[in-house]
């Protein structure tokens, strides 16, 4: 596979006796939209947590742009370009819309306690450019008009958009989107699909966990299917649609015995 951004090799995560993720290996190539699907409890979110650095893998190896990042904590992963959005929206409700995006520029700015307290000239310049850059991201998501609103006053869908704006402002190499369509209606889901494609077109690789099959089939370049922590299939949407084991997992176990 050409130009792998993210490579997982035999990644495992056990919780006591539970093998939540069990020997998963795959690659995500640059500019791809790759989706991870699987029934409830298949280990999708755990896998996401392991990649994003929220959890350490029990075994295995994770490489980001040919660099070993297996044991790095989540905030370091974020500064290296692995940014995630959450299944339940996690915007900073105590800040304005603009400030939410400015936080995402945290790893790309450097004012500390001391320089902030004394407002050095470079720190003021950094602040001004932070605001300018952040407004650019809000503009991309059509949120500029609400830049100074408290973030918690936004309607649900715009909170999702804000989460994406914030994630993009982090300048990710790869965006991990955990069920971006959760809680949205059909039309809004279509908007999200278009949005994810637009994000991909800006050069960001996307790794997606999603339950909405039509969304996954529509936008994915490649799909990975997990069941009980194990990879059972990987390939293009057409390939996955025809895969017997995937059909068995989704429609019931009887097919296996037959």
């Amino acid at each position, binding site marked *: 596979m050409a130009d792998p951004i993210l490579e997982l090799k035999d990644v495992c995560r056990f919780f006591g006796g539970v093998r939540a993720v069990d020997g998963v290996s795959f690659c995500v190539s640059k500019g791809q939209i790759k989706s991870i699907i699987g029934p409830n409890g298949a280990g999708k979110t755990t896998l996401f947590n392991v990649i994003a650095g929220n959890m350490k893998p029990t075994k295995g190896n994770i490489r980001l742009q040919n660099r070993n990042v297996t044991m790095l904590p989540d905030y370091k992963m974020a500064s290296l370009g692995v940014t995630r959005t*959450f299944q339940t929206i996690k915007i900073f409700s105590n800040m304005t819309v603009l400030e939410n995006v400015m936080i995402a520029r945290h790893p790309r700015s450097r004012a500390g*306690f001391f320089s902030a307290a004394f407002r050095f000239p470079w720190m003021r310049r950094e602040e001004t450019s932070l605001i300018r850059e952040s407004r650019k991201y809000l503009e991309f998501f059509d949120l500029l008009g609400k830049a100074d609103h408290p973030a918690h006053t936004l309607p649900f869908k715009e909170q999702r958009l804000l989460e994406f704006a914030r994630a993009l402002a*982090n300048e990710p190499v790869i965006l991990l989107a955990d069920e971006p369509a959760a809680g949205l209606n059909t039309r809004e889901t279509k908007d999200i699909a278009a949005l994810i494609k637009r994000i991909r077109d800006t050069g960001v690789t996307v790794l997606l966990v999603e339950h909405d099959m039509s969304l996954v089939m529509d936008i994915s370049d490649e799909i990975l299917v997990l069941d009980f922590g194990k990879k059972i299939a990987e390939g293009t949407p057409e390939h996955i649609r025809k895969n017997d084991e995937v059909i068995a997992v989704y429609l019931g176990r009887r097919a296996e015995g037959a």
Partner: protein
Amino acid sequence: MMKRNIYIPYAVFLMIVLLAPMFVKNPYYLGVLVQVGIFSLVTMGLSLLMGYAGQISLGHAAFFGMGAYASAILTGTCHWSPWLAMGAGMLITACVAWFVGTPSLKLKGHYLAMATLGFGLIVNIFFLAEVDLTGGPSGYTFARIPHITFIKWTIKSETSSYYFVWGILLVILLLTLHIIHSRVGRALRSIHADEEAARAMGVNTAQYKVGIFILSGIYASLAGSLYAHYIRFVAPDPFGLMESVLLVTMVIVGGMGSIWGAIAGAALLIILPEALRFFQDYNILIYGAILLFIMLFLPGGIFGGSQMLWLLIRKIPGRRQEAKDG
């Protein structure tokens, strides 16, 4: 929030502070105001920790005490310059805050409260038990704590103490306002809102939590040093658990999430008992009733409540328009 100018309220406050002694002539009342200044310094740090970063400390009186004892012992027993002792006190406190904060700030909520409470008790026991160093329960009596000298003035009278303490407070207040309205302030508030999301944005939350814990410890230590040179006597009593609780109460009553609230809270909780002396035996009752009233009807504290009032006066539609224009 970024656009609102932070210097206008600061300038207004500066004028009030400078002009207050013209109206408060009674040295006793001036003394009360000096105490308000000293406690405001502690609550400002605590407000950064509680209101901004969302962490609690029930041991802040210990940092306050460490500053006071460091100043007392280093100037009294060791004959250091008060300024040097003050710096040493802040340095010692910072180290202790780092040592205590690094493991305990991994805890959350009630557990963090318990850990800091335990720390406060340990420090208080140290003040009580290290009789050779601190003088034990009867306080530091080995030598008289000297007056502090600032350039050529000796800070002795109530008026000079007032200007000295509030001068330092004003400087620290300005630095604090700067920190709040910066990348650091945003990082702290993001921790308050959602730690996991903050880390997902690349904020090293553990480092920031310890950092703000240390900074608030330094504020408390500085306040403690000022206290030692003002009262010129230190004993373990004002640095115990009750004082820690009082400090937290000041921050909450004043209004969390605002530095101005921290000053308002300190002012109210120090001036109120003095003002209520008039009621003699009933003063505690009325004091309690007032606190209860604030907590019931002004959940945002004094400062939050006054902000709400201001919004009502200015009418909300007008503000919406302003936000659109911006």
